[in-house]
């Protein structure tokens, strides 16, 4: 983009701008993320020094939020490569601007997710024993093999379509720092765009796209088998493989949409990431939402109907026992609300909500103020009051808070209907949160279950675990943010190659997912 030469592709400027200059916003973000990562590192050093005793884990609940994070990030990693590969293989033309972002998510999610197991280990310094003494009978070995294969394949699959763009940047970004130019030159690998090179690249990408699909499916299948191969209630289930794969793709799509929403907003990539992309991915999200609901109902109905003692104990704990709040929050924010939000443009009666006076900002605000006051009073007066006569009121406050929350959501719906992209991004954020909780619900209750006839075990994550978890999420965001500063988020050569005409605004989506 030298000023003297006229720019043949002015529409690509928003994609290239982040690679050329760095603003204060980015520096602040990196500083904040580094601070969170530093806190996580401090927590991990504490854990290394004193042992896993600094966590809330115990001899009964021996796996907690580290393993939850592991399953979550491995799930998110499905986003990318798998979805990008499926869209490539099926020739869905609209995929072109989103594949790069999707593939990058996979790589970073694996880079953050796989070490979570290391953090969970009591003896991380013995990790090489897994290779030295490894037993193929252990599902952990299956995971090691499968995840390393997936990471290698995903890196390759991310890199191959990068080559022409690297050459493009090598030739075009002449005013960037020396190290960046050297990087682009090295990664371009002598790409000159000859027909022979093009043919070889296309062949490589097609082969990788096909190979990576079974690898991706195997990854989350063997992750599920870590649980499925044990004899525990809630884990020992034959549908666990497909259940996890569907859940992974579901949360993966949500992760892509979230990233797309963030980058479209921050870098102004609306020209590439159009409403159509969000709409199509929204339909994909809804499809997997329904599939996941189907699996969830199959799983719990089967074990609840059979009513074996341990299964029943587990189901009771989830539905109205110790884990019920996490369970219902997961179901509502992870499945129900996202389904509503992705369907919003098609829900005509939503506009009627505007006419309900109680859903206007003023009555809602007054209600919130009253509720806050009552809640604060109860809180100040202390536990003694709550335990006696006011105990009833305490429940009333909780119910009222729930009603108010539902009302606020209803009031938000007509607003969101005007902003379909925002509502799909919101749905994706909720799915991400819900799927994290779902993984927690999978990992912890089955371990807390009374296996020998003793009481339920308890597990309360400590600051160490939360700090490390926050650090993991910050690392993921940091890796992605740095990637966005060095590599173009949109696969420019693929977009140029296609130049798919954008349908007129307002045109309904007949072209659902290919």
């Amino acid at each position, binding site marked *: 983009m030298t000023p003297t030469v006229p720019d043949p592709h002015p529409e690509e400027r928003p994609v290239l701008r982040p690679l050329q200059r760095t603003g204060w916003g980015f520096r602040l973000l990196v500083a904040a993320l580094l601070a969170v990562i530093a806190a996580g590192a401090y927590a991990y050093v504490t854990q290394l020094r*004193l*042992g*896993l*005793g600094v*966590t809330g*884990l*115990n*001899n*009964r609940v*021996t*796996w907690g939020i580290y393993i939850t994070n592991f399953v979550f990030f491995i799930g998110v990693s499905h986003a990318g490569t798998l979805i990008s590969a499926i869209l490539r293989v099926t020739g869905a033309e609209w995929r072109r601007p989103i594949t790069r972002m999707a593939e990058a998510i996979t790589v970073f999610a694996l880079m953050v997710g796989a070490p979570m*197991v290391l953090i*969970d*280990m*009591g*003896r*991380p310094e*013995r*990790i090489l*024993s*897994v290779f*030295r*003494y*490894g*037993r193929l*009978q*252990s*599902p*952990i*070995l299956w995971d*090691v093999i499968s995840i390393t294969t997936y990471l290698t394949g995903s890196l390759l699959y991310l890199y191959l379509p990068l080559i022409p763009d690297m050459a493009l940047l090598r030739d075009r970004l002449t005013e960037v720092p020396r190290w960046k130019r050297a990087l682009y030159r090295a990664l371009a690998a002598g790409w000159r765009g000859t027909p022979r090179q093009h043919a070889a690249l296309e062949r490589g990408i097609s082969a990788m796209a096909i190979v990576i699909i079974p690898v991706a499916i195997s990854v989350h299948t063997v992750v599920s088998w*870590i*649980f499925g*191969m*044990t*004899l*525990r209630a809630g884990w020992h289930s034959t549908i666990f493989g497909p259940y996890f794969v569907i859940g992974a793709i579901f949360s993966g799509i949500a992760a892509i949409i979230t990233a797309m929403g963030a980058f479209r907003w921050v870098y102004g990539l609306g020209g590439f990431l159009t409403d159509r992309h969000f709409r199509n991915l929204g339909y994909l999200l809804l499809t997997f939402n329904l599939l996941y609901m189907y699996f969830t109902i199959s799983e719990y109905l089967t074990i609840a109907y059979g009513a*074996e*003692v*341990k299964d029943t*104990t587990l189901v009771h704990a989830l539905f109205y026992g110790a884990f019920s709040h996490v369970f219902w929050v997961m179901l509502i924010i992870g499945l129900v609300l996202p389904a509503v939000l992705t369907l919003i443009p098609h829900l005509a009666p939503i506009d009627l909500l505007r006419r309900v006076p109680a859903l206007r900002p003023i009555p809602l605000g007054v209600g919130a103020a009253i509720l806050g006051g009552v809640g604060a009073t109860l809180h100040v007066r202390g536990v003694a009051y709550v335990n006696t006569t006011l105990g009833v009121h305490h429940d009333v406050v909780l119910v009222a808070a729930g009603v108010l929350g539902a009302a606020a959501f209803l009031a938000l719906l007509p607003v969101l209907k005007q902003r379909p992209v925002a509502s799909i991004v919101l749905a994706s954020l909720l799915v991400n949160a819900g799927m994290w909780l779902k993984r927690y619900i999978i990992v912890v209750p089955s*371990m807390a279950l*009374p*296996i*020998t*006839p*003793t*009481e339920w075990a308890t597990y309360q994550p400590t600051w160490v675990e939360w700090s490390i978890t926050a650090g993991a999420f910050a690392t993921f965001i940091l890796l992605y943010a740095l990637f966005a500063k060095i590599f173009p988020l949109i696969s420019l050569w693929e977009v140029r190659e296609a130049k798919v005409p954008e349908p007129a605004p307002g045109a309904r989506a007949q072209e659902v997912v290919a």
Partner: protein
Amino acid sequence: MGLTRRSFLKILAAGTAAAAAPLAGGGLVRRFRIRPGSPNLPAFVASRETPGTVVHLSGLPNSGGDVAVAYAAEPNTRTGPGEAGRRWVMVIDLARCDGCRECTRACTAMHFVPPGQEWIRVYEMKDHEEAAPYWFPRPCMQCDNAPCVKVCPVSAAWKREDGIVMQDTSRCIGCRFCIAACPYGARSFNWVEPPHTPEELAKPDDIEWNFRHRKGTTEKCIFCPGLIKQGKLPACADACPMGAIYFGDQVEDAVTNSQGETVRFSELIKENAGYRSLEELGTEPRVYYLPPRKRIYPAPPAEPEPATMGGHR
């Protein structure tokens, strides 16, 4: 060896019975002392001293198919496959257990078990609403089809030919998959650096005694192979004031308790409807239980609220 297991046991049983007559003891359990005048001497010690009674197991099919031998494919060189020809077995008579937890204390003292762990844990059990509560000591079941051995990624847990599921804390990577896999909750983890007492540090670091506990590794009951070598019962069996814990060699078909009572294992199980915990899971435990029928001791007090967890058997 052309001898089937059944015919072998028959010969062995006939020989033992002849040598041990006359039979003593009452009730359903027939008891006899293999060597009168030397109480606390387990049966397997006598057979060690009488050449010809030790049989190598490798030629015999064992009760749980041939899984045990298959799992021993990677024996740890520090201990080998265990005592040849033995199949250690434990029988716990729930009718006799009064919940005093002497077994737990003896085990903890002998192995310097770190705080927060109980390698043999005494649970208060109640099988269903109408049932009376009873005490249930739970050591490691030393399963022949051990879920912990299956899932261990580095062979830190392995099955010896003598039936013991061993645990190597110098190999364990601390992934705790074995704890997740064990349906009996028999495994514990060293969450922090275990307190090392001078007494423990004075002992040699020996995998068969489970000394030298290590931070970040899993441990459990291993049937005290160190004591067995010395001709003693495991610490828990030896310490039980009720003689509720029998220990011995299944091949020899004789088990002994702290009272010096040696009984024929197969008859003890047959005549008292012996069972194994969570039999339906197919783990093939090496610990047998005699039902808490006609408890000699009154049922334990009902505090704290006993967990109702039906179908534990």
